[in-house]
């Protein structure tokens, strides 16, 4: 009977194990393997790529594009997270008051998150087009000179970041809103009785109580934003001259952007990206451990 119970337990476990191995372990290991071998198109097809250790990483780190892509990735991610979170929180607090039509409005705010990325990215690219875009048309109406949103190396990163913030706000709004709804009403009643101002209530009650939800929201946002690829690729292809390239778009460009793929360096950049996300996850785990005893 004990054996039988064990078998049943394994039977329950096996699908999950198979899933994890096939869909997580295998691709990760393949990616690491790709990054430590010198793959040419010939060895990719016929096998026998020589092991080169960390050569691909050295190549990638020595490439002038690496520093540029890393800085762009950090700027893009931090700016996106800060603004998405701030705007999401402001909207969540606003909608938490449950006024007439608030549910409808909140649903409308979800639209950016629901649209396929190719649709929103293409729309942003059209709107920001320096020749025929609606943004420049509006600016022109007020007498301003046209702005090269996507074609100037000084502004291309800003433009893709704005588009990404717009897409990410609803995600922050939904998570933070549900967090707000879980704060018991008595706490607010007590603070109202103590004569706390609106700002004091937010500063000393809402924000601290919301901290665990905020942490999860920011962690998910970090992982999601680090690997953002479609928006940038569709809007600027990482250009002009790499000015809006991030690690994600650069990895794609190395592996698939030219007619002669460079699998090794591309996989190396991909692994660096995974490491960055893991660091974010570890920071979150550490933060949680600090929270739990309290």
């Amino acid at each position, binding site marked *: 009977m004990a054996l039988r119970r064990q078998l049943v337990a394994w039977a329950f476990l096996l699908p999950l194990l198979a899933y994890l191995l096939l869909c997580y372990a295998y691709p990760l290991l393949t990616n690491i393997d790709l990054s430590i071998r010198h793959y*040419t198109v*010939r060895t990719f097809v016929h096998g026998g790529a020589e092991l080169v250790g960390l050569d691909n990483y050295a190549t990638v780190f020595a490439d002038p594009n690496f520093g540029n892509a890393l800085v762009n990735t950090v700027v893009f991610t931090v700016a996106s997270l800060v603004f998405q979170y701030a705007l999401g929180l402001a909207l969540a607090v606003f909608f938490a008051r449950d006024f007439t039509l608030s549910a409808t409005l909140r649903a409308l705010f979800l639209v950016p998150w629901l649209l396929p990325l190719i649709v929103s990215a293409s729309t942003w690219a059209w709107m920001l087009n320096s020749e*025929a875009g609606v943004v420049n048309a509006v600016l022109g109406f007020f007498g301003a000179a*046209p702005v090269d949103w996507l*074609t100037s190396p000084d502004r291309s990163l800003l433009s893709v970041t704005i588009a990404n913030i717009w897409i990410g706000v609803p995600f922050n709004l939904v998570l933070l809103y549900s967090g707000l709804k879980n704060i018991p009403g008595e706490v607010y009643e007590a603070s109202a009785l103590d004569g706390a101002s609106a700002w004091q209530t937010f500063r000393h009650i809402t924000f601290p109580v919301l901290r665990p939800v905020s942490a999860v929201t920011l962690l998910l946002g970090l992982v999601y934003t680090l690997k953002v690829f479609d928006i940038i690729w569709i809007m600027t292809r990482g*250009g*002009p001259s790499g000015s809006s390239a991030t690690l994600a778009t650069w990895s794609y460009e190395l592996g698939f952007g030219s007619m002669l*793929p460079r699998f090794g360096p591309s996989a190396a950049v991909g692994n660096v990206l995974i490491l960055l996300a893991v660091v974010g996850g570890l920071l979150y785990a550490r933060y949680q451990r600090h929270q739990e005893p309290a």
Partner: protein
Amino acid sequence: MKRSPFTRRITTVVVAVLAAAGCSAQQSGGTTGTYSLWDPYPQFDQGSEWVKMIEKCGAEAGVEIERQAYDTTDLTNKVLLAAQQGTAPNVLVVDNPVVSTMVEAGVVKSNQDTGLDASQASPNLVAAGQVDGQTYGVPIGANTLALYYNKAVLSAAGVDPASITDWASLDAALAKVVASGKKGITFSAIGTEEGSFQFLPWFWGAGAKLTELSSPEAAAAVDLWKSWLDKGYAPNSVINNTQTTSWQEFAAGEFAFTENGTWQLQNAKKAGFEYGVLAIPARTGGVAPAPTGGEFVTVPAQREPDSEKTAAKIANCLVGSDNLLATDTALTYVSAVSSVQQRQVAAQPDLQVWVDAVQAAKGRTGDGLGTKYPRISQPLWTAVQAVLTGSKSSQDALAAAQAAASSSK
């Protein structure tokens, strides 16, 4: 015993999951009755002339053909992966600059081995498929770039298109157009292969060579584009334009010129204004060599050499001169065979300028460059973008491009 049906059900699920995992690897194509053909023409569906031609050629070879269409940017990696798994298609229709990559990867067989015949096609088009003296595949047809112009805009500005024979006369025409209140020219300088493709007619037309990106001739070509942006002859949006978006700018009717390809002919007829086409002028006159576009029909290596022979029969049928007219008409390509080109012009006289352009065109991977080309093209488009945005001078940008191209392995 009570639990046994439940246990059995669980076991079934587990077996199913494992079976599904095991089956994800496809079966390899053999010499059986079904042959696979991959092409980059997703725009053609089952009822199209192209697919009918494939079926006819399969029937002639006595086999059934299973055709799959991929997006052209997707196809290279799909084929490399399939070849790795031993499931490469029997017949592969692939973009001409990718042929040398496929040869390098050992994916496609030479014509000598398979009996594929490229002798009918023009040598300047076949060149893209030649590596170390061997020819791989046959061009199915060609497209290339030329200048479309808006007749009304030009005549309002007092420009005679026939007067445009070199860069100076093109510049003068652009000046007149802009002075008349219309827009000059639009093209695509995006940071992908498309940008290099569009830049090459000016690059080659100045006399520059892909092996020497930092030459004064190359600088002259970039400076020409940059001067158009500075003088307002070309919009700033060209830096991010694909060939499709630059066509859309032209189709709005305000622009005098666009640099675009044979594939826009159908759209040009729908644009709602009178258009003309002229060959891209070289710097000091004459037709500039534009890069050839268009695909090669190739025969990938298989485990059984017999199936390669049958595949070559199918490929020969697709590019055989009897069928080529229909194939190229279906694809809106200029034929790679001069006798068929003449028949195309006889049926459609406005194709003459495209035939001239194709005859003057050059393969990007020709001149023995092969797989070196992708490593040259990327620094080149990066340099062009750097100059157009004003972040680098043409000398600095091209010197950096040459350094990057010669340092890459």
